[in-house]
Structures are given as structure tokens and as C-alpha cells.
């Protein structure tokens, strides 16, 4: 119990002291996960919309792949990216291994299926007849899509929340492809692992408290936005 209390107090001390090492780790964590979320959203929202709206040959297989992707083991993704980016790998020439770029790629792969899957479900839940109604009111195809996205906004925000939650707290893959290098690829989760291994439990708990606070704040912000956008709440 004492360790938890010490960790909690240390977290408060670190935050108020604006510890430079901590700030660097927090910035990198937010930068990597934020950029991965942005890329996933840019790719995943349109893909989710298409899957939610259109019927086409092979859709079932694609949906099954997306659902499988929603449960991808991060270490397996990390390992695959590691092999691809390693010096002997097909993408070794990029020189991305043990850099934030490799971590962003890994986290994008992890959050993309979640964003596609949740967006698809949210869009599919909007009554199909609404599209006909909107077309009959003179909306263009693009305006229809934006309206449907707006109607499904609670689900779309849930997709972003799920995507962010999955990657900000993920450790296995970022350790493999990032290497947990100080000042370069060390993020909150990999720092927690390191501090635990060193037996520095109070520091590990402090970093954990900070990680949870960031996740909570991000989710609170998105939930607040969700509530504001949804007149039923």
C-alpha cells in the first residue's frame, strides 16, 4: 500500500515540478499516439463509411478481416514490423527501426481496424432509408455521406476513443520496434516497464498514474464532445 501511496505522491511531485525527462516522455507518447490516431482516422473513417453503406462482393470477408484486426496481438504486430524494418528486411532501407516512425506505423496498424470497425457499425446503424430521404431532399452523394457521418457521430467518436485507448496504453509493440531508447523512443508505457525492471516501483506507479491521467483526460474530452454533439444526452 505504501508503494502505491509513494508512487501517487511522486506522480504529483513530477507533474508540478515539470520534470524535463518526464515531459519529454509525455510529449513523445502523445506525439506518437496522436499521429497514429490521426493517420488511422484519415484512413479508417472513409473505409468504415464504405463498409457501413455499401454492399459488394467480398464484403463479408473484409468485415471478418477488420474484426480479426480489432483483436490483433500488439506483440505480433510489433514483431512483424520489426522483421520488415530490420536491416535484412524488405523495408530495412528506410532506417525506421528504433525510431518514433516505426512506433507510429505499429500503432496505426493497431488502431486502424478499431476505427474502421466502430465507424462501420455506427454508420450501418443509421436507417438505410435516411439516405433516400436525404437524396430526395436534394443532397448530393457527398452531402449525404457527411450527414450520415453526423448522424452517427456518437459512434464515430467512440471509434476514436477506442483507437486512442488501444494505442496510448500499449507497450509490447512499441518496445519491440522502438527499443525504449532514452531521449529517442522512450514513451510512458516502455518507461514503466523499465522502472519496474529496475525495482523502482514508486516511479513506475507514478508514470502509471500520469498515463492513466492522460488517457482519462483524452477520453473525458471526447466524451464531453460526444455529449455536446448528441442532443439525446
Amino acid at each position: 500500500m505504501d508503494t502505491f501511496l509513494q508512487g501517487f505522491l511522486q506522480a504529483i511531485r513530477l507533474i508540478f515540478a515539470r520534470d524535463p525527462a518526464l515531459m519529454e516522455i509525455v510529449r513523445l507518447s502523445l506525439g506518437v499516439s496522436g499521429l497514429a490516431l490521426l493517420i488511422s482516422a484519415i484512413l479508417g473513417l472513409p473505409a468504415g463509411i464504405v463498409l457501413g453503406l455499401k454492399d459488394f462482393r467480398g464484403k463479408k470477408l473484409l468485415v471478418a478481416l477488420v474484426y480479426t484486426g480489432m483483436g490483433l496481438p500488439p506483440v505480433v504486430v510489433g514483431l512483424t514490423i520489426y522483421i520488415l524494418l530490420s536491416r535484412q528486411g524488405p523495408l530495412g532501407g528506410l532506417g525506421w527501426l528504433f525510431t518514433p516512425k516505426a512506433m507510429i506505423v505499429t500503432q496505426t496498424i493497431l488502431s486502424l481496424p478499431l476505427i474502421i470497425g466502430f465507424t462501420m457499425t455506427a454508420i450501418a446503424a443509421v436507417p438505410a432509408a435516411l439516405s433516400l430521404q436525404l437524396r430526395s431532399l436534394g443532397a448530393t452523394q457527398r452531402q449525404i455521406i457527411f450527414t450520415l457521418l453526423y448522424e452517427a457521430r456518437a459512434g464515430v467518436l467512440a471509434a476514436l476513443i477506442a483507437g486512442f485507448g488501444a494505442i496510448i496504453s500499449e507497450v509490447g509493440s512499441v518496445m519491440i520496434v522502438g527499443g525504449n531508447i532514452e531521449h529517442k523512443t522512450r514513451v510512458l508505457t516502455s518507461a514503466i516497464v523499465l522502472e519496474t525492471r529496475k525495482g523502482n516501483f514508486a516511479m513506475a506507479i507514478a508514470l502509471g498514474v500520469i498515463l492513466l491521467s492522460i488517457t482519462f483526460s483524452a477520453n473525458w474530452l471526447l466524451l464531453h464532445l460526444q455529449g455536446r454533439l448528441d442532443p439525446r444526452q
Partner: protein
Amino acid sequence: MISDPIMRLEDIEHRYRERVVLRVPELNILPGEIFAVVGPSGAGKSTLLRLMNFLEKPTRGRVVYHGRAWTPHTLPIALRRRMTTVFQHPHLLSASVARNVAYGLNVRGMRNGREEIWRALAEVRLTHLAEQPAHTLSGGEAQRVSLARALVLNPELLFLDEPTANLDPGNVRLIEESIRRANETRGATVVLITHNVWQARRLAQRVALLYEGEIIEIASAHDFFSHPRDPRTQAFLSGDLVY
């Protein structure tokens, strides 16, 4: 003098999978009229409406609008925006009543339609609910919003698909008044799909019976109800047509 039709259906056949659900060799909609299509459930009335509103392409045949045959893909957006449909289910957006009514104006890039929105809401007697979230409305109120959303666009062609099904008499009366006003004051040509023969009688100048995907009889409202020629029309009007 008989005016040129505003819309003409030629040699229409529509199938779902292999089943023919609609076969209309010819149908003219005349400008300025209220044309009612009556018939039992499953007769193909809603399908007919979707073809006329270019929401679906017929398997065969042509839908001619303003002298040219179009499909949902070739119809220019400017022409599409001269017509609209009020469906049986209102399908309102999760926004306020006023924003729902404004939707059609917004997609046309008309941002200053406050007066038109107010006028349309006044016509369906809903100005007092303008800022109310749409999901809090009763079924009748929601359908009146759906009608106001169409009226605000001043459509040349207004399609109504069972607009008063399952509504109470007060809402039915209000909606029928608005339809009549849309036709008389706003100059909309109205195509009304209904299984309610009394409603067709109250509103329409011409009436058609659609049965099992085929138009059995078209006549002026007076002739249709007073002197139906086809035995199936007689049976439908007397309630003896079992379906």
C-alpha cells in the same frame, strides 16, 4: 386544352430479383394537379414513387421529366432539386425541428432561409416547437416536420408516400390542409400514394388504382369514385377486394 405532362412514365417494368413488382405501360402526371394512387399494401405504390423521384432506376422503360428521359444517375442535380418526397416514416435528423426543416435549403447553399422555414413551420402549425429536438416529437408532429421540410423547398413536384398512415384525425386534417395549400398556393404538382380512398377523394383531382403492380384504372376523382369501370376498382372501393 390538356397541358403537356410534367412527368411521363413509358413502358415501365420493374423487378426485384426475378419478380415483376411493377408494370406501367404509360402514366402522365399533369402540371398543377393532385394525382392520387390508391391500392392495397404491396401493390407497388411506393416502388412507383421511388421511380418517379429518380431514387431507383426501373428495370425497363423510361421516366420522362420536362421532355427528357432521365435515370437516377443522369438526372442533373438542378432538376432533382425541383422535386422531393415525404415518406411514410419521417426519418428526421437528430437536430432541432428548425434545423431539420432547413436541411434542404442548406444543401442548396441557401443559408438565409429563416423566413421560409418559419412560413413552412407555420403551415404545419409547429412554430412553437422550432427549437425542440426532433426526437422529442410525437409521430404526428414528426410527420408534419417532414412535410414542412419538403414545403420549404417550394417543389415543383411533391411526392407523398402514405403521409398520414397511422396518424390521429387531427394530424391527418392538418397534413391534408397543408397538402392542399402546397398545391393551390405554392403551385406544387402533387403525387399522393395512399391506401386511404377517403383521403384520395378529399384531395385528388385524378385517381389511379394500382393493384398487383399494374394500373387498373385512371379517372377523374369524380368518375373514379362515382362510376368506377373496372370490377376490381369497384371491389376495392367497396372493401370487397381481398388481398
